[in-house]
């Protein structure tokens, strides 16, 4: 096969299962791509070539009838998923060479399906930050435009999958951390329903809002991963027709104060779905403007409790922005934490009985503005930091508060050639529907197959 890293995850797995390409061959291609291009991108914290190569050789020796759904596919993950005997930095140099005692069950599932997890990817320190900045391991750069942010906190995932270092990756999403890197880097990301995927063996930030989720180059690839991470049925569902499905266009919040390029892009995406046979319906959405603050009242005290020893050590133990955000957790009273948790139940009920009863899924932009320059959003503390974070996460954080699943898929390029993306939102445990919609959109538009210029 001429260009191994251009084919999709599903194509690579199917070719490897059929013996048309070897797991070692795929891994060598992935390692070579990292060596060739990561100097300019900084998506990878470390590779694990010896263990990965041993796994690939063992996979190549397997008889055809024992080959799994992800046979031989090189994957790379946010550096917060534990693997026994290996380091997990959580994006912080302060953790040193501490080795993990056990492997995260999600990685065990991927291993069991034949995936070869070969690299640990860059991320915001302790997963706190939606931009891709990291003072310890360096800023991750957007493969489409190095001066722009990658999104975060799973910054390395969006960059590595877009740069064709890996066919897919596993990250976590507490306020948009899977969906934002996917949106900024022109790939596809899924935040599943809260609680669907195991958090065991995964760095904790907020046990109420943390949500593992995959990134890949297509919804079909994500569906294959979800068949392994959750249960079978996702890939079979993507082939289904979307004619007659009702796609809701919110009449408030998600359409307020949109950048003109984002608004035009959303309108064009809606027309694509209409042409594919979906019925577009305007829907009233409860006011989501308070959800960012309510989510803050939940995740920040939970995170501050985890990181209290580092806060007590004083400035320098944590990056400035992480310390500033954790301090907000110390400032939240237990009474407000409980009230926010109770309001969360009512908010979800309102969504289920309102907009998500009136349509099958909502269509919104992934972000209200085009991907910002890294220099625009690097403020470490204070009100400037809050404004920056709010502008980036305005359309992603509500889903973490609500626990709902969301899929982000590319919807074109802005006038500077940087990816734009839409987000599809559905009721709990409707991941298959989201992947079905994403797959049809991608097949029709091909935006998920756009490549960064350096790969041309």
């Amino acid at each position: 096969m001429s260009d191994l890293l251009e084919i999709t995850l599903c194509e690579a797995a199917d070719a490897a299962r059929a013996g048309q390409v070897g797991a070692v061959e795929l891994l060598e291609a992935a390692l070579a791509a990292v060596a060739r291009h990561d100097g300019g991108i900084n998506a990878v914290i470390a590779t694990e070539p010896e263990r990965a190569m041993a796994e690939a050789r063992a996979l190549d020796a397997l008889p055809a009838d024992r080959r799994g759904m992800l046979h031989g596919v090189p994957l790379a993950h946010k550096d917060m998923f534990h693997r026994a005997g290996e380091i997990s930095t959580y994006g912080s140099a302060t953790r040193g060479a501490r080795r993990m005692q056990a492997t995260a069950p999600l990685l065990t599932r991927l291993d069991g399906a034949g995936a070869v997890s070969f690299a640990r990817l860059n991320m915001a320190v302790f997963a706190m930050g939606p931009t891709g900045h990291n003072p310890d391991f360096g800023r991750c750069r957007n493969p489409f435009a190095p001066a722009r942010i990658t999104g975060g906190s799973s910054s390395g995932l969006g960059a590595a999958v877009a740069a064709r270092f890996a066919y897919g990756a596993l990250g976590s999403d507490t306020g948009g951390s899977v969906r934002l890197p996917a949106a900024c880097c022109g790939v596809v990301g899924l935040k599943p329903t809260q609680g669907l995927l195991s958090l065991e063996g995964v760095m904790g930030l907020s046990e109420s809002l943390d949500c593992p989720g995959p990134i890949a180059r297509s919804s079909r690839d994500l569906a294959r991963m979800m068949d392994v991470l959750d249960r079978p049925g996702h890939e079979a569902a993507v082939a289904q027709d979307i004619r007659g499905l009702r796609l809701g266009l919110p009449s408030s919040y998600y359409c307020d104060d949109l950048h003109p390029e984002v608004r035009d892009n959303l309108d064009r995406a809606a027309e694509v779905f209409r042409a594919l046979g979906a019925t577009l319906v305007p829907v009233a959405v409860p006011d989501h403007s308070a959800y960012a603050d309510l989510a803050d009242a939940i995740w920040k005290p939970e995170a501050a409790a985890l990181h209290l020893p580092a806060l007590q050590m004083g400035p320098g133990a944590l990056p400035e922005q992480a310390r500033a955000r954790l301090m907000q957790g110390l400032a939240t009273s237990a009474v407000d934490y409980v009230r926010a948790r109770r309001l969360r139940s009512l908010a979800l009920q309102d969504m289920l009985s309102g907009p998500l009863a009136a349509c099958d899924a909502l269509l919104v932009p992934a972000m209200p503005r085009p991907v910002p320059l890294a220099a625009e959003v690097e403020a470490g503390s204070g009100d400037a930091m809050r404004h920056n974070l709010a502008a980036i996460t305005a359309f992603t954080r509500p889903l973490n508060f609500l626990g709902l699943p969301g899929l982000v898929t590319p919807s074109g390029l802005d006038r500077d050639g940087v990816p734009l993306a839409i987000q599809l939102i559905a009721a709990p445990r409707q991941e298959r529907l989201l992947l079905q919609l994403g797959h049809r959109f991608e097949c029709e538009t091909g935006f998920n197959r756009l490549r960064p210029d350096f790969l041309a």
Partner: protein
Amino acid sequence: MSGTDRPEGGATPPLTPAMGAAYALAVHGVVLSGTEAGWFTAEMLRGAGAVACAADGVALADVRMASFDVLLQGEGA
């Protein structure tokens, strides 16, 4: 309510940065710089105001936190 609500200039906050710093040290064992104390105290007031605004007029007494997880189990295949 928005993510930018905070006490405006001219209003006298009921909590001063020095009081916020004393709270952080006494309750959490965290020493704050002068700048951090200002931020911490403003956030304490802003965050509490945001939750109070969202909860205003809402009957929360009969709502259980666990009902959220029950709702998440109610859909899908």
